[in-house]
Structure formats: structure tokens, C-alpha cells
């Protein structure tokens, strides 16, 4: 059984597209054959030759680390039940440092007697895949090593690796500026970075944003003016002594060596970034986060100016879509039961349309949904919005009417859960969907408009490549593939709400706002 395809992207205009499967990227030509034209695999798996061996012994990764080719894997604190099944989820420990980490994990870790262990090497699955408008370049992100890869596409399906850049935090969403020359990468820490598509080789480290001016060690941090209680003074003395000993420990993390610029940031986990233009062709950046916000900022170089917010979601936002023909309209979805339709430049909610009710037609027991992706699909002056939801084996097709209302048109049931969708710019515009078929090879289905409906026309079966494909248990695989629902707020997170913990002698003399 081979891994399912988890990401799709069209390659310019035509029947070419690329799909990510595990740690590999394959290109296909829908007009020619159902066999991949080309396949690229993450060097981590190529190095070790046999992926499964690498997974069982840690050798592959250790070698990588020793050679300095990858950032060292994090030591992670794990509760007992996690110990057995920790391959691939990714980011337990990272999440803890991340805005809005899901609460149940936090709590669970607090309650269980956690223990430290070196994780089994997590596999560098491709988590994001996109291509420039003309299809000349493919951009991919692999999760475990937070690396952003750029490939050059020769127009016939062949990909050539151009660059790899390790980002400071794991990217969650990618977008390209309208000229296709700058990549916007939104990450879990809430920041949006701008990177040139092709890194300039002559980029000197100085061109990176200036770090905080070096302040002397004595100045940095608390001093005798800022702490007052006896306990804290003693602590300060200790700290001073400690400081010299481990001056290296709390140094600011060095930024990446390649050219990059922070455009904007939320104090929340970003989930989606989108670029668009207004009627006067001025660029804008739209960002969505886990705390229900959709922010509209001006495009570069004025990305520090927030034009407006589109507020109204009651749960996390994960998917944004901006139809090309009616670019003043934005459709958004996430953990809410509805899709939202916005006049994004005015920050005005135009309407909502129920999605849960249609999900229930597929799976009657559904009580909540998490939208994974929304795409606009335009044929002959009609604009359709296609949505997929996590762990729901169907495509939901809506139509955007001339009065900007959205109507449900059709639900296309699938053999398995939809992982990604993309549209192809061919004669009768095609719709691609990656399906995770339980107990079988993953597949990519191509739908085509058939009169007033859609019919599956072609189907590409994934084939297992024993050499370059890791074997994961279903449980581990699910953790990699189904991550959206975990963004939901559980209400279990107490934060610091309970007041001071009952520790005798708890000092209240530390800093506080007044």
C-alpha cells in the first residue's frame, strides 16, 4: 500500500500538475499518461537509501545532524501514551512555544508524568506545494526540517532543484506576489516573511535585518532598580554569577542567512496567506489566523499598514479563496459550520452559507467540520467554489452568484477523504482532488464539467516505491495528514486563569503592569 498524495498544484496553463506523496514530489501530464513524468524525493530519504531502515535505526538522521546538513531534531517531552506513536506528527514540543497551542496536549503533558526522549526521526513530509502562475517554478515546504524548496520547471514536467532555505519556524501557508518574484511564507509563530523566488547568490549576511543592537550583559535584563524583594535580590545576585557562566545560553537566535524580510505578524498561529489586488491594481496581503481573524494589509512595500479586518468567524479560519473574476470577493472557511463571504476591502460580511448540513449528507454523525481548502473554479462566466473538509470523503461545490450570494450546487462523494484540491486550466477546466483511500493506494481524481454536473474522467493511482517511501502505521499517517481539527479551541486551557499556584512563599514582587 502506498502513501496517498497529500498536496496538489497545477503547473501553469495546461494539463500538467504536480503532486506530493510522502516526502516526494511527482509531476504528471493528465493529457498523456497516468504515470509520473518525474519524481523528486527529499534527500534525507535518498541518503539513507532505504527509508524504513532509517526509520527504525536513527542512523540516517544522526548522520545528517553530524554532517550539519539538518537542524538537530528537537528533544521532546512526551507523555506515556505518546511514546509509542510519535512519528510524524510533527510539532508537539514546537506547538508549546507557539501562539495558541491546543490545550489538551498541554494539559495532558502536565498531568502525565512526562519523560524526555530523543524522538524517532520525523519524516520530512511535503506539507505545502505551490507553483508560480506560469508554472515555471514549483515551491514546496517539507515539515520536519522547515525547509522551503524552489524547483525550476522546464515546462515538460522536469523539475530541477534551485534552492533550499531553512525557515526559522515551520511555514503554514505560501503565497506569491502578483509578479511571481517574491514568496510570502506565513508561519506558526504568526509572522509573514517575504523571500525572493530565486535567492541572489551574492546576498551577504549583512543584508539580513539588523539584529537588536548588542547591549552589554550588565544592562540586559533585570537590575537592582527593577527588583526589590530580598528573595529577588538574592536571585539577581545568583543570576549575575550564572550569567557569566552561561553567557551563550540566551543569545538571540540568529536569523536565516538568506535574504528575507518580516512583512507583518499576528500574535496567533497563521493558517493562510493570500495575495490579491484591488480594482486599481494595488496589491494586498490577506492573512488568516487561529484566533478567528482575517487581516487585510497593504502589499509591499507598505505591508505595515493594516487596511481592515474581516471579523465574524467564531472559530479558527483555515482557508481563504479569492476568485479571479470577482476579485473584490473573499470566501473563507475554517472551524465554523458555514463558509463566509466578504467584501474584503471594506471588511464587510456579505453573507454565510451552511456547509455542515451538506457534510451531514455524507456523514450523518458529523457535528463539526474543519475546512481544509477552498478553491475558486471558473468556467464560462460561472464561478464555483469548491470546498473540502477534514476527514469527510466528499467535494462540496458551491456557486457564487452575480449578487455575491453563494449557493450549494452539488456534493461529489469520494472513495476516501479528500486531502487537497486544485483546478487545471485546460479546455474544459478540470478539477483535481487527492483522495486518501483507506486500505488502498492513494489516488488523484480528475473531474470535468459534464453538462450541469461534474464527472470523474481520469484517475491516477499512486504506486508504492519501496526504495524511497517510508512505511508508516495508519495512526502515524493520520497524524501527519489530518492536522486542521487540532486548531480548535477546547476550552480546557486554563492558562493562568487560576491565579497564583499554591506555592508557599510565591513572590509577587516580580514585574507587573500597573
Amino acid at each position, binding site marked *: 500500500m502506498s502513501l496517498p498524495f497529500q498536496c496538489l498544484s497545477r503547473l501553469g496553463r495546461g494539463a500538467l500538475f504536480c503532486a506530493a506523496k510522502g516526502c516526494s514530489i511527482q509531476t504528471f501530464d493528465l493529457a498523456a499518461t497516468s504515470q509520473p513524468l518525474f519524481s523528486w524525493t527529499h534527500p534525507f530519504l535518498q541518503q539513507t537509501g532505504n527509508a524504513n531502515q532509517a526509520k527504525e535505526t536513527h542512523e540516517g538522521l544522526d548522520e545528517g545532524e553530524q554532517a550539519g546538513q539538518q537542524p538537530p531534531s528537537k528533544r521532546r517531552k512526551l507523555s506515556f501514551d505518546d511514546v509509542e506513536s510519535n512519528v510524524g506528527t510533527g510539532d508537539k514540543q514546537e506547538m508549546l*512555544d507557539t*501562539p*495558541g497551542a491546543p490545550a489538551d496536549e*498541554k494539559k495532558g503533558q502536565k498531568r502525565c508524568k512526562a519523560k524526555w526522549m530523543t524522538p524517532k526521526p520525523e519524516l520530512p513530509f511535503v506539507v505545502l506545494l505551490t507553483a508560480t502562475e506560469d508554472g515555471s517554478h514549483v515551491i514546496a515546504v517539507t515539515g520536519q526540517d522547515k525547509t522551503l524548496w524552489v524547483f525550476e520547471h522546464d515546462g515538460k514536467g522536469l523539475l530541477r532543484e534551485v534552492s533550499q532555505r531553512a525557515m526559522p519556524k515551520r511555514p503554514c501557508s505560501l503565497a506569491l506576489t502578483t509578479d511571481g518574484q517574491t514568496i510570502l511564507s506565513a508561519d506558526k*509563530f504568526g509572522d509573514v516573511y517575504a523571500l525572493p523566488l530565486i535567492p541572489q547568490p551574492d546576498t551577504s549576511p549583512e543584508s539580513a535585518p539588523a539584529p*537588536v*543592537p548588542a*547591549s552589554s550583559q550588565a544592562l*540586559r*535584563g*533585570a*537590575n537592582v*532598580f*527593577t527588583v*526589590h524583594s530580598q528573595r529577588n535580590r538574592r536571585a539577581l545576585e545568583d543570576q549575575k554569577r550564572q550569567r557569566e557562566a552561561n553567557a551563550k545560553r*540566551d*543569545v*538571540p*537566535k540568529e536569523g536565516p542567512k538568506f535574504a528575507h524580510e*518580516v512583512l*507583518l*505578524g*499576528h*500574535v*496567533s498561529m497563521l493558517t493562510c496567506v493570500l495575495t490579491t489586488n484591488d480594482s486599481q491594481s494595488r496589491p494586498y496581503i490577506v492573512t488568516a489566523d487561529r*484566533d478567528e*481573524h482575517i*487581516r487585510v*494589509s*497593504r502589499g509591499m512595500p*507598505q505591508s*505595515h*499598514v*493594516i487596511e481592515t479586518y474581516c*471579523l*465574524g468567524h*467564531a472559530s479558527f479560519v483555515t482557508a481563504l479563496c479569492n476568485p479571479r473574476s470577482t476579485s473584490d470577493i473573499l470566501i473563507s472557511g475554517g472551524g465554523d459550520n458555514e463558509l463566509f*463571504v466578504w467584501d474584503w476591502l471594506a471588511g464587510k*460580511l*456579505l*453573507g*454565510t*452559507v451552511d456547509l455542515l448540513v451538506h457534510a451531514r449528507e455524507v456523514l450523518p454523525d458529523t457535528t463539526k467540520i474543519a475546512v481544509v481548502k477552498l478553491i475558486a473554479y471558473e468556467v464560462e462566466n460561472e464561478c464555483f467554489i469548491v470546498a473540502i473538509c477534514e476527514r469527510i470523503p466528499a467535494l462540496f461545490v458551491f456557486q457564487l452568484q452575480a449578487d455575491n*450570494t453563494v449557493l450549494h450546487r452539488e456534493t461529489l462523494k469520494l472513495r476516501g477523504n479528500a486531502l487537497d484540491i486544485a483546478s487545471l486550466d485546460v479546455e474544459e477546466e478540470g478539477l483535481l482532488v487527492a483522495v486518501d483511500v483507506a486500505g488502498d493506494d492513494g489516488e488523484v481524481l480528475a473531474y470535468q464539467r459534464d453538462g450541469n454536473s461534474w464527472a470523474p474522467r481520469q484517475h491516477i493511482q499512486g504506486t508504492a516505491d519501496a526504495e524511497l517511501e517510508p512505511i508508516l502505521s495508519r495512526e502515524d499517517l493520520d497524524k501527519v495528514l489530518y492536522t486542521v481539527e487540532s486548531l480548535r479551541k477546547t476550552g480546557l*486551557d*486554563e*492558562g*493562568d*486563569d487560576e*491565579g*497564583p*499556584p*499554591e506555592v508557599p512563599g*510565591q513572590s*509577587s514582587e*516580580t*514585574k*507587573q*503592569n*500597573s
Partner: protein
Amino acid sequence: MAEPLNKKQKRAHYRQAQKENGISQLPRKKFYRQRAHANVFSDHHLVYPKTPDHMDWSTYFPAYVPDAGPIITSQPTETSLPDTANLYPKKLTKEVEVVDIGCGFGGLLVALAPALPNTLLLGMEIRTSVAEYVQHRIAALRTQNPATDLYQNIGCLRANTMKFLPNFFRKGQLTKAFICFPDPHFKHRKHKARIVSTTLNSEYAYVLRPGGIVYTITDVEDLHHWMVQHLEAHPSFERISEEEQDADPCVEIMKTETEESKKVERNKGQKFIALFRRLEDPPW
């Protein structure tokens, strides 16, 4: 009773007595103390409006609730919006224009109330019991000054401003924002949690109208440099000159009346002040 009451029980007793006697006495801080740090990244149990229009201010500023009028539906029902989405709470006769971000025990609010009698001031505080203290304090002050409008113009709510400021305020609604003695977050890896950062300053610029002022004060020199550096680096802000700063009556109040500044005074600490003006957005 054999054992003396523990802190929790004492607090419970105090709350009970408060409930029975009403809030006419100023609350006592010792029953509201809370650890001085809150994790701004965690979800908490926060209550916040979906949009500024959904915010019901009437319980915070009862003196400014318009006398009559039904609930206004301020959006046309042209689309498939559910009816409830069109129902907004009544608007006050005035809008909040000044915020104290991280108001703590509310010293600044109480001191500013008579100084800015015609402006609504809101304190925002992330720690539940501290916000509750300020609410009780304001209620008591209002009861103690029944004949005047004094203290009717201040309010306090619990909020995480780093995440939810735009849920409370429209673009350009505010004229002043105070950031007084914020949590310094000394460690480098905690700097993202600082209340002033280049990316977060865009949100302050969003809620402030051009000409609006950000007031900062801290006793931590390093943090002062950080705040100055990050606000100066932001194209929407410019630092206000020292002369102008000294002429602003709010500065003196901020310097002497906040609870923290009194503490710094007692301990003979230093105070670092910086003011920044919100500039017009560049042409687009």
C-alpha cells in the same frame, strides 16, 4: 475552627461579604493578587466580541447608555445573513477613545478619570482577578461619588490585547493608548511576548487615529530601549519631542499615579518615558 483559613477560603469569605453588602467600600488588593505574568499565547477563557459592533459597552459605562430606542439593526438584510448577525447591542452616546493596555490595578484610570472628564477610558487587563479588582474599585468609586459624574467615564475589562484589540475597536477609534510598566520578558526567547514589537505596532496603528499618541513608561532601561527602537522603526509612528512630552499633563499622571510607578518611587527606581505619535498612512 482548628486551622486558620487558607488564602482561597479567605477570598471566598471576602467575596461572600461583598455580595451581601454591595460594593461601596474600595476593594482590598490582597484578595485579588495574581501572578504577575500571563501567557499571552494561550487561549484562556476569554470573552470578546466578534466585531467592535458586537461589543456591548452598556454594563461598563451605564451613564452613557442612550435613554430610549429599540435594538438597532444597522445592517440591511439583503443577503443570507442570519437574523441574529444583524442585531447589535445599543451604541453608547460616546465611544471609548483612550485605552490603558495592561491596566493592572487601575491607578492610571482612576487618576485620569477627572483629568479627561469628557472621554471614555478603558483599562484592559489579562489577569482575571486583577481586572475584577479594577471593576470593583470603579463600582465603589461611583457609589462613593453619587452626586457627580466622576468615575462614570472609566471601565475595565479582561482581555488579551495582543490578540484581540481589533475585536474591540474600529480602525482609528482611539486617541491615546497607554502602555505602562509592561511585563519586561527578559529572556530572548520570550521577546515575541513583549507588548511592543514591530509587527504588533501595526495593530496599535490600526486602532489609533492619525495624531493619536502611544504613551510608554517602564523602569527597565533595556525594555525602554526596545520599545523606542521598535516604535521608531515602525513607519506609522514618530517619537514626540521631550518638550512636548513634558507639556502633556497625562505624562505627569502616568509618572506618578500608576500603582507600579508608586512602587518604583518607593524603591527609588528609575522611570523611562517615551511618547509616539501615530502618523498619517502614506499615500497608496
